[in-house]
């Protein structure tokens, strides 16, 4: 035995005391450690959610979460996070002021009516037949006259208060105008209030992610929010649904600094509030390109004739509402919008496969929109849907091309 027994006992006791001290020290710090872990895990959850959002949600809700007109509403959206709509609050404030103003004006009108009452009493006095009637009317006249003296003294005050109120109303209306200009619609409540959601924002988002929006197709021209949760047949596990939810909830601070105009609004109105499907661009079905001109097996666009003369401003609107911007604006998924026409002229139409078709730059763009698989730009992945020929009319296509022609920079 290398150690005498006493030393072994002392050493053993020292170790056990050491163990107790260390475990005690861990136990004391457990509260802090657990809360740090909870925060860290929430952070990881947001990171995972960001990846899932980028891979699955950004195609419709946009990579920055600001939504796409005609496709999906913004999630980075003050209307989603705000507790109340400032335009509605402002409208209520104006109504309240108006009420006060009405009261003040009523007071002025009452004072003005006192003279008529006096005249009536004097007529009554003249018609009085006995002394007791006269005494009574005289007393009333005396009362009224003293009242009138007092009221007359008040008139300037009341009138001033009415003027003040009017000024306040005018100022409030200016503020309201600012709010409505910023996109705050006084007729719409923030999302949760509007649909009378009984739970929290967290449960609302988690529910929408997991179970989808079965009716959204009737609002967004066939774009249905799918069921993402595995519980409802989608691909995401419950913890992944939570991750995406945490990511969306983390938009809060940025969202509350924005106004509704900064992002794609268009939350569908509940039908209980009398809203029907989202108005889609009024298009005569007979004018749709593939209906009118037929779909060409060889992807030719020559049958469309001259493609110039479109309205660039309208084209820009279409570029947003058809969600082209979602993939192209930042160049995240498809080639970047900036320089589209420049590249078409300088590069694309000189590519052998395009050159063989003798396409003009406009025709190249038309072909790319109607038959996106005909030629896939280097670096592209061929994700663009081939549905635009069934959505657009020829003038709309020309508008789009006119808009793209403004993108003529290197």
């Amino acid at each position, binding site marked *: 035995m290398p150690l005498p*027994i006493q030393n072994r006992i002392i050493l053993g006791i020292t170790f056990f005391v050491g163990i107790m001290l260390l*475990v005690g020290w861990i136990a004391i710090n457990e509260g802090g450690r657990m809360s740090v*872990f*909870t925060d860290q895990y929430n952070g990881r959850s947001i990171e995972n959610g960001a990846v899932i959002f980028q891979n699955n949600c950004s195609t419709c809700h946009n990579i920055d979460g600001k939504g796409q007109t005609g496709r999906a509403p913004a999630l980075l959206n003050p209307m989603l996070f705000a507790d109340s709509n400032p335009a509605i609050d402002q409208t209520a404030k104006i109504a309240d002021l108006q009420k006060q103003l009405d009261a003040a004006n009523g007071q002025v009108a009452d004072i003005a009516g006192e003279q008529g009452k006096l005249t009536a009493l004097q007529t009554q006095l003249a018609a009085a037949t006995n002394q007791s009637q006269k005494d009574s009317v005289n007393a009333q006249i005396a009362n009224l006259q003293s009242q009138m003296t007092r009221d007359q003294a008040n008139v300037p005050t009341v009138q001033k208060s009415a003027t003040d109120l009017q000024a306040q109303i005018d100022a409030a209306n200016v503020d309201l105008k600012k709010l409505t200009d910023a996109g705050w619609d006084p007729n719409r409540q923030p999302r949760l209030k509007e649909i009378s959601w009984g739970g929290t924002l967290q449960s609302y988002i988690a529910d929408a992610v997991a179970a989808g929006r079965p009716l959204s197709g009737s609002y967004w021209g066939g774009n249905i929010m799918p069921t993402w949760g595995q519980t409802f047949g989608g691909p995401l*596990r419950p913890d992944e649904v939570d991750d995406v939810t945490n990511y969306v909830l*983390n938009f809060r601070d940025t969202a509350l600094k924005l106004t509704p105009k900064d992002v794609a609004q268009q939350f569908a109105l509940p039908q209980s509030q009398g809203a029907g499907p989202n108005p889609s661009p009024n298009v005569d079905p007979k004018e749709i390109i593939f209906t009118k001109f037929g779909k060409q097996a060889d992807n030719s666009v020559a049958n469309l004739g001259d493609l110039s003369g479109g309205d660039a401003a309208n084209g820009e609107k279409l570029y947003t509402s058809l969600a082209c911007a979602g993939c192209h604006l930042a160049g995240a998924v498809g080639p970047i919008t900036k320089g589209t026409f420049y590249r078409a002229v*300088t590069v694309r139409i000189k590519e052998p496969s395009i050159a063989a078709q003798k396409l003009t730059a406009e025709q190249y763009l038309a072909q790319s929109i109607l038959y996106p698989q005909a030629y896939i730009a280097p*670096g592209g*992945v061929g994700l663009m849907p081939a549905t635009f020929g069934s959505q657009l009319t020829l003038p709309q296509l020309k508008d789009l091309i006119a808009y793209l022609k403004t993108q003529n920079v290197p």
Partner: protein
Amino acid sequence: MSVLPVPSILDDIKEKGLRKATLELVDESVERFTAGLNIQDLREALRGDAPSRRPNPRLTPHADAFWMHMRPSYYHQAMTGLYPTFRLGWLSTYFFFIEIITGLFLMVFYTPSPEAAYTNMLNILSNVPLGQFMRDLHRLGAEGMVLFVSLHMIRTYVTGSYKKPRQFTWFTGMILLFFTLFLSFTGYLLPWDQLAFWAVTIGTSMAEAVPPQVVGTNINLIMRGAPDIGAGGLLRFYLAHVFMLPLLTTVFLGVHYYKVVLHGASLPPREEEIGQDTAKRIPMDRRVYFTPDIITSEIMWFGCATFLMVVLCVWFFHAPLEHHANPGVTPLHTTAPWYFLWLQGLLKLGDKTLMGVILPGILLSLYFVFPYLDTTPSRRYAHRKFALSLSLIFITTMLVLSYMGTPKYGVNTAGDQEIAQSLAPVEGVGPLRAVPFDAMAVGTYCTDNIDKEHKLAIREQATPAATAPYPNTFADDVTCLAAPAGELHTLMEDYQKLVNGHNSALPNAVGLLTISDNQVKADNKNDLKRIDVKIIWNVPEVDAAKKPLKNSDGSFQLHMVSLDVKELNADGSQKMDANNLPIIDKANAPQVTSSGKTLYVNRASEYHDNGE
């Protein structure tokens, strides 16, 4: 006449007085509890005195008590030093008990279901006081148990302790080694994270290779409960881990211990004559009694080992927890648990059935019956040159095979993926995530020059297309910033080294790191940054074997493509044609390709301080 209607202690008190009666009662209770030692005996033992009573009361518990009868009543003095046992068998048992105690604690908070298991892990870490500590102890103990049981086996082989009459002790020891590996392996799956899922997928896929096919398929089905690991597999692994294997291990541990009592612990080879076994015939003057010497020593070592475990779990070791198990995503460089790496290495050498089942099967069968095959009587090292050389060869082979099991050997990952993986691994931290959140200044940094702001032209013909969207994939130019001094600069230096280290496969490679704000919070708590790692390089011409071709001067032959070149005016502006369109010329230029990955980093999940 009793004080009470029945005999009681009061009679004793009446007869002997309170003090004496109480002391006698305590003394008697102690003697019953220790199965033979009264207070005086214990006092003598702990003082290191010789026993004053005859026969030696310290031997009584070994005859009368259950737990003590499993231990020898005395050892040969030659067995009490560090050599020859190195306490390895004792440590193996120690870890088994640590695993049972911590395992019971963890079981309380665990449900064996894919829906709940991972959430349970998070709950243990975030909401159970001492949860992380217990989990760390359990995991560390599991690794320790595998390690020490294996070392125990090697030691037994080296000292020749498996020889007659201890062949069957070795046999039960092999069974225990087997159970230890399976205990550890079944426990691996339970956290239901990516590490667990894929390590076990690799491990169990070997069972599928057992010939003939009908056997392999059915073994696999029985183990996994389905063709793939899922709810059924998790439940089966759980039941094996907490019930079947501990039960069987306890049974064989009993047999193993009983054999040690029966045959005595084998002495160091030089202590006995060749062919003799004198373990049970210890001369009086060389006996070291279990009580008090061995038992105090063991309690001291228990304290020492536990103290070390606690220190390790407080400061140095935390059980890993990766992302939720995802059958759809195989993390790059998945490996089996370290003690099965040799098997993975073996699998890289050839056929799954031959290398994964038949060869290890033969090897394992040989281990089991080895004492019955090696019947040479001498245990002296000098007489066992062949057997000892064999063990050295075996250990070396296992180490080499284990190395071959790691991704460093025989896994051809493209250099660009390797760089991205080294910088920001799919699982775990890596150098990128370890950079403090505030040190990640927004901007793009490039490895071609990390100290100076410059322009980097990325032409748009990046092929093949990136699978994840990267900023600027389709943009023309990137402005690379000078990396600010500090952690980000250090990271870029690492990145530079990685890119330069792969330039034999990636000509003119440049690594880009783009940091952008994704979500900004008012309270600075949950800010989120997006980080894009992108590597661009020139595509080399390759031969039929896909090997890059080189010029005579050793440089790469680059694949050329037709490119647009802007025709410039004298002042450097773009020259326009009559239609006010830019004039572009064609020129040949090396093709550029790129790849990379996107990740997000949240301030709250700062990786550098969470002990991973």
